[in-house]
Structures are given as structure tokens and as C-alpha cells.
């Protein structure tokens, strides 16, 4: 079980209104990801749910029970912190067992649960080490292990991967996804990395300045962003925005085209945008070409296949796929 409902939840720190009243429902078993730029209130929202901060207004329902005034430990949630927050003076075994000890379980039961969590997370060999003797990824797994043993109604993750290096991040991302597939427990995951959001979420909640800009499945957000903010935030490399005449011609204040929806050619083409290659980033499989001097936007990024030859200073012509163009009005709202 783990249905979490926020009703008009608001948070002020002193005078600063960090989260204006917002409503949100997270279904049982759902993997919800909060994304948004730094300082937009993701962590705050998560901590409100966890009970580590008091709400300034509104109610938090967990499985239809009002949890607004409950102590963190009583909400039946488990949290994985960005810093892992492992107890450095305890062995892995003790770390994982800690919540069970606090709950007063008997020794045999604790040991049984620790063993099964460790097995699930490939930690069996490390049970007697201290966190200091583990690599970043292993620590992350211990933190998850500590959360799992409690068999919580929901997991809360606050940027759990941001301290790992790129390669590890990919691996751990997969592990968490697989864990979710296996446990089918509600998970709320905070990140500012849109790749993580896209790859992991059932539901992405895009936040800006404490407000929900859009909530929906990754592909919904990718295909039909509600406004320019969401459009710019989701997708990598970023969507290119063009204002002015080109947009006007398409009946919009601004249009957006994703780098993968632009074709690049080295010959002039009718209606194509002309420009000069700034930097071409060769990733092997793909190349990201940053095109300048188009007169439309400072840079237009185009994704082409890895084989396309392309170098700094080349003159190129860009053709957007017309059906993939997103249109926005002056307020930044999408024109359907």
C-alpha cells in the first residue's frame, strides 16, 4: 500500500513562500519523479511528505489516513538521502538492521530480513564492512537496503545518484528501476537530471518555484509539454526555441524544435535555415552540432548520426520536421 495525497500543501520558511498551496496524488505502486531546477522546492516537498518539516498549510494523506501531524517514523515511509546518510560507525549489517532494532524486532527476525535485503542488493559479502570501506555505488545500495528492510509503504529518494560518477549513475539508475519493477512499492524520486526522470518515472512532476508545471508520463511530457518551461526542461539536448518571423509564420509567438527533429545538410535546401557550425560534439553514435549565425537563435543544436562529417566553421542548412514543431503563445503556453 502507498497512496500519497497532498491537499493544498504549502510551505513557508519565515517570509519566503517556498511552496504555494499545491495538490498532488501519487498512486499506490507508482514511480513518481519530481524534477525541476535547483532551489525549486523538490527537496522541501519530499521532506514535507517524510515529516521532516512541518507543513505551513494543507493536509498530507497516506493511504487515506491524515498523516499531517504524524512523526516521521510513524508514517511508514523510508527515505534514501542524497548523502546516503549511512551511520559511519556501524557495519553494513548494523546499518541495515538499525530501523528494525528501533522497531524492537527480535534478533532472529532482524537477521533474516537483513540477509534477504543484502542478497537482493548484492551486499552479502560486505555485511561486515563499514560504510567508509565501500565504494559510492555500494554505499548507495546500503542506503537502499536500509530503506527496504522496513517494508515501507513508499520510498522517498532525494537525488540519490548525484554523488556518483557518470558510469555508476547509469548502473544504479537501472538497479533502482529494476527494484521498483520487483517490489511494486510506491517510490517518490527527486532529481534535477531530466535523463533520470525520463528513464525511471511512471509519472514526472515538473516543479518550478514550488509550483507544479506539469505532471504526467515521460512520453506525455516529451511529446506534449504544457509550456515552454517543460518543453525546455525535458529532452536532451534541449529543445531549440525560435521566436519572431519563423514562429509567426506558423501562427505562434515561439516555436520549439528538438535537436533530433532537425535534418542537417551541407547543401542549400529550400526553406532551410542557414548557419555555421560552432562546435560539433562527436559521441561516436551521434554527433551534436551546435549551429550559430542562423539569425533565429543564438545556437541551434542538431543531432545527427555519428557518421555525418561535420567540423567547426562548416556552413550548413537545417530543415525542421514540420510535424514535430511545438508552438507556444506569448505566455509560453502550448498551442495544441
Amino acid at each position, binding site marked *: 500500500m502507498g497512496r500519497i495525497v497532498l491537499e493544498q500543501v504549502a510551505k513557508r520558511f519565515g517570509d519566503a513562500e517556498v511552496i504555494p498551496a499545491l495538490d498532488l496524488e501519487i498512486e499506490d505502486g507508482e514511480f513518481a519523479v519530481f524534477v525541476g531546477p535547483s532551489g525549486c522546492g523538490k527537496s522541501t516537498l519530499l521532506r514535507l511528505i517524510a515529516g*521532516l*518539516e*512541518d507543513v505551513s498549510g494543507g493536509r498530507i494523506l497516506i493511504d487515506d489516513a491524515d498523516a499531517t501531524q504524524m512523526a516521521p517514523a510513524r508514517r511508514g515511509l523510508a527515505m534514501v538521502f542524497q548523502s546516503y546518510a549511512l551511520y559511519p560507525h556501524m557495519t553494513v549489517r548494523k546499518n541495515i538492521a538499525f530501523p528494525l532494532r528501533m522497531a524492537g524486532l527480535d534478533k532472529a527476525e532482524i537477521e533474516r530480513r537483513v540477509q534477504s535485503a543484502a542478497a537482493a542488493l548484492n551486499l552479502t559479502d560486505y555485511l561486515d564492512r563499514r560504510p567508509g570501506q565501500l565504494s559510492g555505488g555500494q554505499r548507495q545500495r546500503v542506503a537502499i537496503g536500509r530503506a527496504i528492510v522496513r517494508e515501507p509503504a513508499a520510498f522517498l529518494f532525494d537525488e540519490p545518484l548525484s554523488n556518483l560518477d557518470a558510469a555508476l549513475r547509469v548502473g544504479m539508475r537501472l538497479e533502482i528501476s529494476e527494484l521498483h519493477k520487483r517490489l511494486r512499492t510506491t517510490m517518490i524520486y527527486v532529481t534535477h537530471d531530466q535523463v533520470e526522470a525520463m528513464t525511471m518515472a511512471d509519472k514526472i512532476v515538473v516543479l518550478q518555484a514550488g509550483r507544479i508545471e506539469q505532471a504526467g508520463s515521460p512520453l506525455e511530457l516529451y511529446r506534449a509539454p504544457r509550456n515552454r518551461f517543460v518543453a525546455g526542461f525535458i529532452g536532451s539536448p534541449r529543445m531549440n526555441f525560435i521566436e519572431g518571423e519563423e514562429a509567426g509564420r506558423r501562427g505562434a509567438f515561439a516555436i520549439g524544435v528538438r535537436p533530433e527533429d532537425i535534418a542537417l545538410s551541407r547543401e542549400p535546401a529550400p526553406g532551410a535555415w542557414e548557419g555555421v557550425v560552432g562546435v560539433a560534439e562527436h559521441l561516436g553514435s551521434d554527433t551534436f552540432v551546435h549551429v550559430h549565425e542562423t539569425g533565429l537563435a543564438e545556437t541551434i543544436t542538431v543531432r545527427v548520426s555519428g557518421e555525418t562529417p561535420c567540423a567547426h566553421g562548416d556552413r550548413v542548412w537545417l530543415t525542421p520536421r514540420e510535424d514535430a514543431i511545438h508552438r507556444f503563445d506569448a505566455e509560453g503556453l502550448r498551442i495544441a
Partner: protein
Amino acid sequence: MATRRSRAAARMMMAPAVVLLLGWMLVPLTMTLWFSFRRYLPMRGGDLGWAGFDNYVRFVSSSAFWPSIQATLVIVGGVLAATVALGVLLALLLDQPIWGQGVVRVLVIAPFFVMPTVSALVWKNMFMDPVNGLFAHLWRLFGAEPLAWMSEASLPSIVLIVSWQWLPFATLILLTAIQSLDREQLEAAEMDGAGPLSRFVHIILPHLSRAVTVVILIQTIFLLSVFAEIFVTTQGSFGTRTLTYLIYQRVLESQNVGLGSAGGVYAIILANIVAIFLMRIVGKNLDA
């Protein structure tokens, strides 16, 4: 971490320390204040009645008052200057790779463990005594007339003794601070063409400023109330009568508790002026 619950808990947990210290401060302070307005002469039968501001006026107008403030400031300032300057040098030296670093550190740290009374006795008798003291022997070895430290150089002697006690403290804090300096900063400066002296002036010294403030704060707290060293050595003569010592003389030697209490109130005021002044700097530096 900032829920109502935790804030309430925090207030509860602060309470014992705050209440105890408040009591420790207020009860004697109130009594001192009370005494300072009384003619309280234990040798003449105790509390002889109301004195108004007589004690206060008498205390400041006594010829000993301003010299005592001066002596206090000279001792505090002198010790601070000596310990910080030598402490920085010593810390730099100990930070270098040398053989037997651990042992040297043990040697340097040792004076900190010596009780003030003992160190004053040892210095006064075995080193600074003009006849049998080691310094006298040393002076004679070079054909000089031995110096009567306690009378001819009384303040410097006391500063020397107290500095010896506090040098380890300053050195250790500064050493830890130096060791905490990001080595990459020094390397960056080296790449930028800064020589050893420039690195010291532009990188190390500014980095130490925080540690230096802490040294100054803590030492001042202890130095303002230096007593044993003076009691054992000069007993306040030759210009070494600090405010603390003057109060001691008024209370215990002259047995005038009222007058001494007025002095105590002045000392508290002085301490608070110094405190506010220090807190200003430290407060700023501790935040940074």
C-alpha cells in the same frame, strides 16, 4: 529538522546548561553588586551599611586603578602577540617534513599541561632568580650582570611565563589550521608564480586568520583572569598589578569586600567590553 517537535525538544535540552550558567552568573553577580553598594568590612564586623557609590568612586579614583588596567592590557596584549607570532612560526616549522615529528610535537605541547602555579614557581625560582636561576648563570657565563627579572623586567617576565604556557595551544590550533589548507591552493599559487614568501603572505596567512581569531578569543578569556602567575612571582609589585590582582588586594589583603566588589563590577564591565569587541570579530569570522 525544523519541526515544532524538534524545536520544543531543543528548548528542553538547552535548558539545563542555560539555567545552570545563568545561575552561576547571576547569583554571585547579584551578591557582588549588592556588596559593592555596602560598606562591607569583614574585619570590622561585616556589613556596616549602605555606601552608595562611594566604593565605585574610590575604586576608580585610586592611584592604582588606571595602571592596573594598563598592566592587564599589556599582559593580555603581550601574550597574545607573542603566542600568535611564535605560534605561526612554530606551526609552519612543524608542518614541514622532519624526522621525529611526533616527538617534537610532544615536546612542544608539554607546557600546556603544567599547572600555572607550578610553571610560575619553576620559572621564578629556577630560571629567573637573579642569583641561582639558570638565566643568571647564563648571563654570568657571558660576563653580564644577571638580570633581576622579577623587578627589572617584571611585565616581560610575566608575559614570558604566561606565553610559555599558552604557546602550545596557539601552535596546535594554527598547526591544524595550516594542515587544513587545501594543498591545491598552494599549488595553484606556485603555478601562478608565487615564491615561498608570497605564498606565506598571500595564501597561508589569510587562511590562518580564522584560527588566529579563535586563538585570540579563547586566550583572552583565560588571560583576563591570569592570577596565579602574578601571585606567585611579583605579588603585584613593579607594575604587574592587573585589575584582577588589584581586586584581590582590595578584597583579601585590605579586607574591604565592598570596595573589591565594586572593582569586580568594573572588571565585569571591562570583560564585557573586550567580549563584545571580540565577539564582533569572531562572530564575523566564525560565520565565514
